[in-house]
C-alpha cells in the first residue's frame, strides 16, 4: 500500500449540534474547514435523508381557461416527474442545494398552452429547521440511518480520492457495538484503505499536548468528564453524557427567566452566545444588588434570586420598530426589565436617542459604558433573525428572507444562566457547575493510580462549545475551590513533614512497610525530595511547555513526599491548562469567536478559543497514525485487517 499523504486524510468529528470535517492536513493545523450541522431532513422516500430542508412549493400559473378541457392529466404528469426527480437527489445526497424548479412539461405545454398548470418548485428553506432529524442526541446516536446519511453527505461533499483514510473522533458514550457498526459502515460504504477512531477526550489531550489531564467536554445537551492518564482513557468512573449540564441547559434556564418577558428560545440562544452573557464566579454579587447602589431603586435587585423576576416590571421599556415579538409585548402591557429595541437602522438610531434620554432619567452613571460587563446592570446584544421580505409579493413563488439584526437589552438575568432551573425534572441539581464539579471529583477519585490525581486536578482541559459562555471556566474553578479544595491546615503537614520524615522511611524502619509489589512511583525520583515542591509545581505547570514523556510518573507535587506511607488526599489545588501557543490559528479562532476573550476577569483563563481542541488533537492524531508512522503503532485499521478480522477488531485500534 502506498503511504498516505497529508492532503489525503479525512477527519470527521461528529457532535450533537455540529459535525466538523476536513480533508487533508494543512501545514499548520487550523480549525476545521467544514462545519456541517448534525441534522438531516427526511427525504420523500421513507428512510432516506437530505442535507437541506427542501420545501415543496406549489404554484398555479394563472392562465386562460383551458380550451380542450384537458385539465387533469398535467397534474398527474407533474407528480410522476416529481418522484422521479426526487429520488436521485436523495440517493446521492450530495452538496447541491436542491433548488430545482420544474418547468412545465414540454409535450403537454405545447399542446395546451392555455390550461392551468400547477408547478412544483423545490427551494431550500433556510429559515426553519422544522422536521429536522438530529441523529446524535446527547452524544448518543439515536437514528442510525440518518447518521449514516450524514456521513455519506459529508463524504460526498468533500469527495476525497479513493486512497484516503478516515479518522473519526468518537463520542465517549458510543458503545463498543456502536463503534463496530460505524467501522463496518465506513469500510463497506466508502471502501476506505484505513480507518481509525479517536476518543474525543484523548483527542483533546493531543490538542493540548499533555498526556495526563482531566477533560471536561461541555456539549449541547451533555457534559463528558474524562480522566486521561498517560494517554490512556480511564473508563471507570468516567462521566459520560451527564445530562442537563450542556449548553442547552443554560439556554433553558434563560428561557425560564426571560420567557415571560417575550424572549423566544432563539433569542435566549443568541443571548447565551453573546458576549454579555456571563457566568460570574460564585459569591460575586450581581450588579444592581450591592455594587450599584448608586443607581438608586433598582427593579432588578429582586432578580438576584432568579425567581422573582417576573414579579416587578421595570418602567424602562422602550418603543420598538416593527418587530413582531415586541409588538405583542406592547399589547400585553408586560413591559419590563428586558426592553427590546428593534427595527432597522434609522429607527434604531432614533431609539438610541430615546434610550439615552431614558437612561439619563433613570440616573444611570454616565461612566457606565466603561464598566466591565459584570458590573453593568443592563446590557444589550445583537439579535439576528430571518425576516421575510415584505416588499415582494409571492408571484415568483419563492420567499426571500433578509438577515435582520436588532438590539435587545437584558438585565441581570444574563448572569444567571448557570443557576439551577426551577423545573429540574428528576434531577436534584444544584446548578450546572456544581454538577460538573461533582462529576470531576467523582471521576478523579475513581482513577486507580492515586499518585496521578493531584496532577489531574491541576490539568483541567475544558473544551466544547458550551464552555464558550463567558466566565464559565472561572466559575467552574470557583465552585470546585469552594466545594472540594482541601484547606491548608489539612495539607500543611505535607509540606512541613518531608524534611523530617522521609529519611526514616528509606531506612526501612518498623513503621515503614516496604511496599510489596506496588512501588510508589515517586520513589524513583529522588531528586524531588530536595526541591521545593512549590517551585517544581510552578515550573511543572508552565503554560505552553509541552510535558516531556515520562515526567508525569514523577509528578513532583505534594504526593511525592507523602507517598512514603500511602498517598494524600486531593485536591490541594485546581488549575486549567493553557493551550499550546504554536497553533496561532486556533488562537485566532478563539479571539474572534469566543465571547469571553475581550476583557473582564474571565479573559485570563485558558481554555477559551480551544473549545475545539479535540479537533486539533484529531489532526495531530491523524498526522501521527496515518502519515508519520504509517500504521506501525497500530494507529489505524487497514482494509486488509478489516477483511480478515471484521469490525470487532476496531477495538484494538481505537485510541
Amino acid at each position, binding site marked *: 500500500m502506498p503511504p498516505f499523504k497529508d492532503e489525503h486524510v479525512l477527519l470527521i468529528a461528529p457532535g450533537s449540534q455540529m459535525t466538523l470535517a476536513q480533508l487533508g492536513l494543512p501545514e499548520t493545523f487550523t480549525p476545521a474547514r467544514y462545519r456541517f450541522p448534525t441534522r438531516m431532513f427526511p427525504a420523500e422516500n421513507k428512510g432516506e435523508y437530505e442535507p437541506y430542508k427542501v420545501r415543496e412549493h406549489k404554484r398555479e400559473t394563472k392562465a386562460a381557461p383551458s380550451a380542450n378541457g384537458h385539465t387533469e392529466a398535467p397534474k398527474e404528469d407533474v407528480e410522476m416527474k416529481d418522484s422521479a426527480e426526487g429520488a436521485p437527489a436523495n440517493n446521492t445526497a450530495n452538496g447541491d442545494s436542491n433548488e430545482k424548479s420544474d418547468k412545465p412539461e414540454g409535450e403537454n405545454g405545447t399542446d395546451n398552452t392555455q390550461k392551468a398548470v400547477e408547478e412544483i418548485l423545490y427551494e431550500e428553506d433556510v429559515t426553519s429547521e422544522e422536521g429536522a432529524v438530529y441523529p446524535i442526541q446527547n452524544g448518543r446516536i439515536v437514528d442510525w440511518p440518518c447518521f449514516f446519511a450524514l456521513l455519506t453527505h459529508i463524504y460526498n461533499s468533500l469527495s476525497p480520492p479513493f486512497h484516503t483514510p478516515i479518522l473519526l473522533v468518537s463520542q465517549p458514550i458510543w458503545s463498543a457495538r456502536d463503534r463496530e457498526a460505524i467501522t463496518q459502515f465506513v469500510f463497506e460504504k466508502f471502501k476506505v484503505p484505513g480507518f481509525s477512531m479517536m476518543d474525543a477526550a484523548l483527542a483533546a489531550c493531543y490538542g493540548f499536548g499533555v498526556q495526563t489531564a482531566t477533560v471536561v467536554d461541555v456539549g449541547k445537551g451533555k457534559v463528558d468528564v474524562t480522566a486521561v492518564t498517560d494517554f490512556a482513557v480511564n473508563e471507570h468512573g468516567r462521566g459520560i453524557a451527564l445530562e442537563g449540564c450542556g449548553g442547552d441547559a443554560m439556554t433553558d434556564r434563560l428561557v425560564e427567566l426571560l420567557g415571560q418577558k417575550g424572549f423566544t428560545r432563539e433569542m435566549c440562544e443568541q443571548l447565551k452566545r453573546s458576549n454579555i452573557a456571563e457566568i460570574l464566579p460564585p459569591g460575586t454579587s450581581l450588579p444592581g444588588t450591592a455594587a450599584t447602589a448608586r443607581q438608586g431603586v433598582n427593579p432588578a435587585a429582586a432578580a438576584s434570586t432568579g425567581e422573582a423576576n417576573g414579579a416587578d416590571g421595570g418602567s424602562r421599556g422602550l418603543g420598538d420598530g416593527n418587530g413582531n415579538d415586541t409588538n405583542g409585548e406592547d399589547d400585553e402591557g408586560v413591559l419590563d426589565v428586558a426592553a427590546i429595541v428593534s427595527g432597522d437602522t434609522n429607527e434604531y438610531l432614533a431609539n438610541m436617542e430615546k434610550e439615552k434620554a431614558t437612561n439619563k432619567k433613570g440616573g444611570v452613571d454616565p461612566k457606565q459604558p466603561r464598566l466591565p460587563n459584570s458590573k453593568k446592570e443592563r446590557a444589550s446584544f445583537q439579535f439576528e433573525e430571518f425576516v421575510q421580505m415584505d416588499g415582494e409579493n409571492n408571484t415568483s413563488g419563492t420567499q426571500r428572507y433578509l438577515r435582520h439584526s436588532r438590539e435587545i437589552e437584558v438585565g441581570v438575568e444574563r448572569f444567571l444562566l448557570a443557576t439551577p432551573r426551577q423545573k429540574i425534572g428528576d434531577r436534584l441539581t444544584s446548578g450546572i457547575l456544581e454538577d460538573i464539579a461533582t462529576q470531576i471529583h*467523582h471521576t478523579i477519585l475513581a482513577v486507580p493510580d492515586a499518585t496521578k490525581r493531584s496532577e489531574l486536578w491541576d490539568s483541567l482541559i475544558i473544551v466544547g462549545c458550551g464552555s464558550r459562555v463567558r466566565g464559565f471556566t472561572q466559575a467552574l474553578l470557583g465552585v470546585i475551590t469552594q466545594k472540594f479544595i482541601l484547606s491548608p491546615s489539612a495539607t500543611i503537614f505535607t509540606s512541613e513533614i518531608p524534611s523530617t520524615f522521609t529519611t526514616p522511611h528509606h531506612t526501612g524502619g*518498623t513503621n515503614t512497610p516496604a511496599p510489596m509489589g506496588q*512501588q510508589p512511583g515517586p520513589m524513583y525520583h529522588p531528586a524531588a525530595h530536595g526541591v521545593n515542591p512549590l517551585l517544581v509545581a510552578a515550573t511543572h505547570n508552565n503554560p505552553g511547555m509541552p510535558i516531556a514523556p515520562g515526567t508525569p510518573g514523577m509528578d513532583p507535587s505534594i504526593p511525592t513526599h507523602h507517598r512514603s506511607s500511602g498517598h494524600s488526599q486531593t485536591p490541594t489545588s485546581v488549575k486549567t491548562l493553557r493551550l499550546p501557543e504554536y497553533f496561532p490559528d486556533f488562537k485566532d479562532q478563539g479571539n474572534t469567536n469566543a465571547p469571553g476573550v475581550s476583557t473582564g476577569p474571565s479573559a485570563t483563563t485558558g481554555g477559551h478559543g480551544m473549545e475545539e481542541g479535540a479537533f486539533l488533537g484529531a489532526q495531530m492524531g491523524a498526522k501521527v497514525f496515518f502519515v508519520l508512522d504509517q500504521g506501525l503503532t497500530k494507529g489505524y485499521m487497514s482494509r486488509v485487517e478489516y477483511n480478515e478480522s471484521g469490525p470487532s477488531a476496531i477495538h484494538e485500534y481505537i485510541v
Partner: protein
Amino acid sequence: MNPSNPPQAAEYGGDEVSAIVLDPGYSTTRAGFAGEDAPKSLIPTYYGKYNADGQEKYIYGDDIFVTPRPGLSTYNPIGKDGIVEDWDMAEKVWEYSFTSRLTGAKPGNPFQNGLNDIPAEELPTEMEVETEEKPLADSPLLMTEPGWNPAKAREKTIEIAMEKWGTPAFYLARNGVLAAFASGKASALVVDIGASNISITPVHDGMILKRGVQHSPLGGDYISSQIRALFKKNSPQPITITPHYLISSKTAVEAGQEPQARYKTFAADKAPDASYRALLEERTIGEFKECVVQVWPGPNKLSNNGPNGIPNEEAARASPGRPFEFPDGYNQIFGVDRFRVVESLFDAKAAIPDPDSPFPAPTPAQTLPELIKASLSGVDVDIRPHLLSNVVVTGASSLLYGFTDRLNQELMAQFPGPRVRISAPGNTAERRFGSWIGGSILASLGTFHQMWISKKEYEEHGANIVEKRCK
C-alpha cells in the same frame, strides 16, 4: 497504487464475536469483552429507586453518585454473603453493566440500520416487526460466581442468561479459579478481600477444592463499619460524615476545629433517604481508606510487642500521623487509630466495639489467619505446601496499605516450615479485577470453546446442566 483507482472488491465475510465476561460483585459489577485487559464497564451494584411523575424509576451506574434524585433510596440486589437475593433487580443491574458500554441497548433493525442495501420493494412493511431483540443475542457470556454459590442460584443464573438475555453460549466460573488464572497459576490459594466478604479458595489444577473454601464477612464494608466506630468515639469530638451532596461550600478551618460549611437542604419530600446518604458516605470512607488507613505491617499483632521488646502500639504512635479532611472541611490528623480499624482482620480482639454496627463483633475464626488455617486443613496434606507457595491476593480491599506485608508475616508465623510466597499484582487494576481478568483470559482461549454450554444444550437438558458442566 494510484489513489484514484477504486479498491478491490474483497470484503469481510465472517463474523468474529468476542464473548462478554461478567463479574458481578457485591460492591461493583464488572463487564467487558474477553481478551481485553480490563473490564470496559464498571458500575456500582447498588441501584437507586425513586418516584417521579407517579411511577417508580430506577437508576443504575455511576450517575447515582453525581446527581441525587427526589426521594432516592438505594438498594443492593446481592445479599451480605455474596449470594443474589433479588433476582429481578440483579438481572437489571447486570444487564445495564453490559448494555451501557458494550452492546448498546439493542441492535437496530437490520433492514434499516443502513448497513444493508435492500431494494425498496423488498423492504418489509410495518407488520413484520420482529419480536424484541434480546440484549445478548449474539455474544457468548462467561459469568463468575463465589465458590459457595448454591446450586439453585447457579441454575437461576443460566436461566436469566439464556432466556432473558438470549445468549447463544454460557459458562459459569468460580471467581477464585479465575483469580488464580489471572496470576498465571492453575493451582493456588486465593485470598480474596472483597467488599462484603473475605474468602479463601484453594484451587488445584483449575478446580476449586470445595471443602477448603472459607469465607467470612470481614470485608471492605466491615472495615468501613470499624472506621465509623472510630469516628464515633473520636477524641476531640465525634466525627459525622456529611457527604458532598449536602454541602454547598466549605471554609478552611484549623485541624480539629468545628467545621464551617454552608449546607444544602432539600425539601422534605425531595430529600434522598438514609440509604443514599450512607452510600455517599461510603465514598468518603473509601477515600479515607485510600489515604489514611494502614495495616500494621507486623511482625506480631498491633497489641503485642515487637521483636525488639517495644510495644507495637508505641511504634505505631511514633510514626507520623496522616491528615484527612472531610467534605464539610473538618480535618484532623489520624495517628495510631488508623492502624486499629483494620487490625481486627487479623486479631478479633482488636475490633473497635460499636453497638450500632450491623456487623457483630468478629469471632477469632473469622479472621484471616484462622480462615487460611481452616482452608488448608480442608485440603489434602500433599498439596498444602504447593498452595502456600502460591498464595494469590486479590480483591480491592487488599489494596489497603501494608496489607500484603502483614499477610506475609502472619503466614510465616503460622507456617514456619514451608516456603510461603505471596503473589499480589502491583497494578491496582489487576488486583481489583483479578477474577474478571481471569475470565477474560479463559474465554478467549481456543481450547475453552468446547466448554461453553450452548443454547441447544440448555434447551435439551434444562438449567441443571450448569451443575454438570461448570464444576
